[in-house]
């Protein structure tokens, strides 16, 4: 059997048997299930009660007697504040409010409740607001106008293409979800695989196996087999996560009002997702190989890696800015910068259209970085993999690379 294939198989099997790998692969679906479970519990607790809630009111301005039943909330009229207070104490009503005689000029409504709360609930506010506006307008404008005042607009947006036809991708939060999930998984996979490459090469260096391996295989075979084997393990991890998404969405959508059922995954997004995963992984893998080559221990290698493994996660830190201005020049530059490109492009694809030229330049820069990184990593491996002890400084590395 080809030696690269042997190393590939060894790395893949060795990695998927690691306890840390199994924990991480199960962690995401388990956490999602936990999240859905918590959502179910919380939504069950906060679900509006089915029994009728009574809210009292005292009408000192006069004429407020319409729309006293809204959903399962009934407004009960009291003649005096004392009567309303007694009913509140006896728990006949949940709360009450007073419409003062000068309400029209002041707009003040006084509300009384026995509950300590930060703000009135959205349901109470809506009921009182609709009750006031409905009674103020009753008899003066048609009923349909009153309804429109209560709910002034229902904004429906249609995105058109440059030729004026309706675009196949209509955007919106629904379309951001999948790229955001892809981006998140991609960032996680890049961080994890960088760790796998570091661990694998670092352990072989630390355990003094490198020279034994290099007496059987070339640096190229070792690097290729290792990067592909660990990449396959990472891909298996992502596949398990992706495969668990439909199941999780099913569980989630039953409680999140079918929101997820409206989500469509465009083929272009899937293709770009796979392309960016492979390119992103290769870039971080060769970089990790180089870092492992110059580091005497796994721990030191991981310390160095913590600097660049922050980069794929970085776009998530500025997500709110990205949502506001998805086409800012800074995002365009970072979509081309190879270390942030994979995750950032995924997120931007969900937010807005990414021009083809940006995708082409971004992919080209990634490919060139991988080739450059591979040459550098192979050179670092040959130079430093057999050097043990102190980690060389940047100046020394540059001098040694130039000398060879």
């Amino acid at each position, binding site marked *: 059997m080809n030696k690269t294939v*042997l190393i590939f198989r*060894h790395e893949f099997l*060795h990695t998927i048997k690691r306890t840390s790998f199994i924990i991480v692969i199960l962690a995401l679906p388990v956490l999602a299930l936990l999240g859905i479970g918590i959502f179910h519990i919380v939504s069950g607790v906060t679900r509006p009660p089915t029994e009728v809630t009574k809210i009292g009111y005292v009408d000192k301005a006069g004429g407020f007697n319409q729309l006293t039943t809204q959903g399962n909330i009934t407004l009960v009229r009291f003649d005096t504040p004392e009567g309303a207070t007694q009913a509140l104490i006896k728990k006949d009503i949940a709360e009450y409010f007073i419409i003062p005689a000068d309400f029209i000029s002041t707009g003040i409504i006084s509300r009384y409740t026995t509950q300590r709360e930060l703000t009135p609930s959205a349901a109470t506010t809506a009921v009182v607001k609709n009750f006031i506006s409905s009674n103020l307008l009753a008899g003066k404008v048609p009923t349909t106008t009153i309804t429109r005042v209560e709910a002034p607009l229902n904004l429906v947006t249609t995105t058109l293409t440059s030729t004026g036809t309706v675009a196949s991708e209509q955007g919106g939060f629904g379309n951001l979800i999948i790229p955001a999930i892809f981006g998140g998984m991609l960032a996680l996979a890049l961080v994890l695989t960088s760790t796998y490459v570091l661990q694998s090469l670092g352990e072989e260096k630390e355990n003094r*196996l490198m*020279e*034994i*391996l290099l*007496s*059987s295989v070339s640096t190229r*075979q070792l690097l290729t087999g290792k990067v592909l084997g660990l990449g396959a393990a990472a891909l298996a991890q992502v596949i398990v996560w992706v495969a668990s998404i439909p199941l999780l969405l099913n569980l989630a959508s039953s409680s999140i009002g079918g929101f997820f059922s409206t989500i469509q995954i465009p083929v272009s997004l899937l293709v770009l997702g796979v392309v960016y995963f492979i390119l992103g992984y290769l870039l971080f893998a060769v970089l990790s190989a180089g870092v492992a080559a110059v580091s005497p221990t796994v721990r030191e290698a991981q310390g160095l890696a913590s600097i660049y493994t922050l980069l794929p996660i970085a776009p998530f830190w500025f997500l709110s800015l990205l949502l506001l201005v998805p086409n800012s020049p800074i995002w365009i530059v970072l979509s081309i910068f190879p270390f942030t490109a994979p995750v950032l492009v995924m997120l931007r694809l969900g937010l807005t259209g990414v021009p083809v030229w940006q995708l082409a330049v971004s992919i080209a820069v990634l490919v060139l970085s991988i080739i450059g990184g591979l040459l550098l990593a192979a050179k670092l491996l040959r130079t430093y993999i057999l050097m043990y002890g102190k980690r060389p400084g940047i100046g020394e590395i540059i001098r040694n690379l130039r000398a060879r």
Partner: protein
Amino acid sequence: MPTVEVNHIVKSYADKIVVDDLSFSVPQNEIFGLIGPNGAGKTTTIRMMMDIIKPDSGDITILGEKLTEASKNRLGYLPEERGLYRKLTVMDSIIYLASLKGMDSRSAREKADKLLSQTGMLPHGRKKIDELSKGMGQIIQFIVTIIHDPELIILDEPFSGLDPVNTELLKNLIIDLRNQGKAVVLSTHQMNQVEELCDRILMIDNGRNVLYGNPKEIRSKYRSNSVILDFEGELGQVLGVTEKRAHKGYVELVLDANTTPKQVLERLASTGIVINRFEVATPSMNEIFLKVAGKNYE
């Protein structure tokens, strides 16, 4: 055709020449000792033979050709800096590393069983490397080096860290390999091993060849004109002896240029003393090593 042919190799790092115009050859059926003090350039020479690092100039041929990926399967290498996968079992480690030498897993397992049994390590086959002692780990590393039946075996400081029992075991295994017709290159600074094992040696110092040849011939070359005598009685003046050097348990008699050991023995016998031991004094490899290395460091 020699198994190893090294011609005028030079290697330098920055301004320091580590290996300086070194040439040697190793035929089949020979244990060849590569000896020298620490930092002499032994490991660098071996790494160039293994194509792990490239010489600045000079040629190396292994098994009649420049080392290729295919010819790597025909040699076994035990480096000075060595280890194994700590979390793998002994058997899994051996099978994986043997597979990288072109063995299929079935033959690797069969051969591993045989070698483990031969070295008394069979009961440890299912243990993780982590659970073994350092000496046991060394034996497993040696098994990994020879499992694929290589034609050339390169051993860099194979006895370091081994107890006397395992040292003896390893020595016998190395002699067996030579008797099977293999070429063995043995790099060591332990001179007693060189005297016992090596058919020829190359001593290097500061990257240069300082001694090359058969240990017996070298010892003979470095022989001083003296004899060792262990006796009972009174030793007076002996004709031809210029100096008597007393050592613990024996006396070294330095002879003049016109006297042979045989003549001295005859003269000693005629004095009536009881001779328990008489031998021509040849320096040990250790003494030659110290003499040559020391001279160059002065």
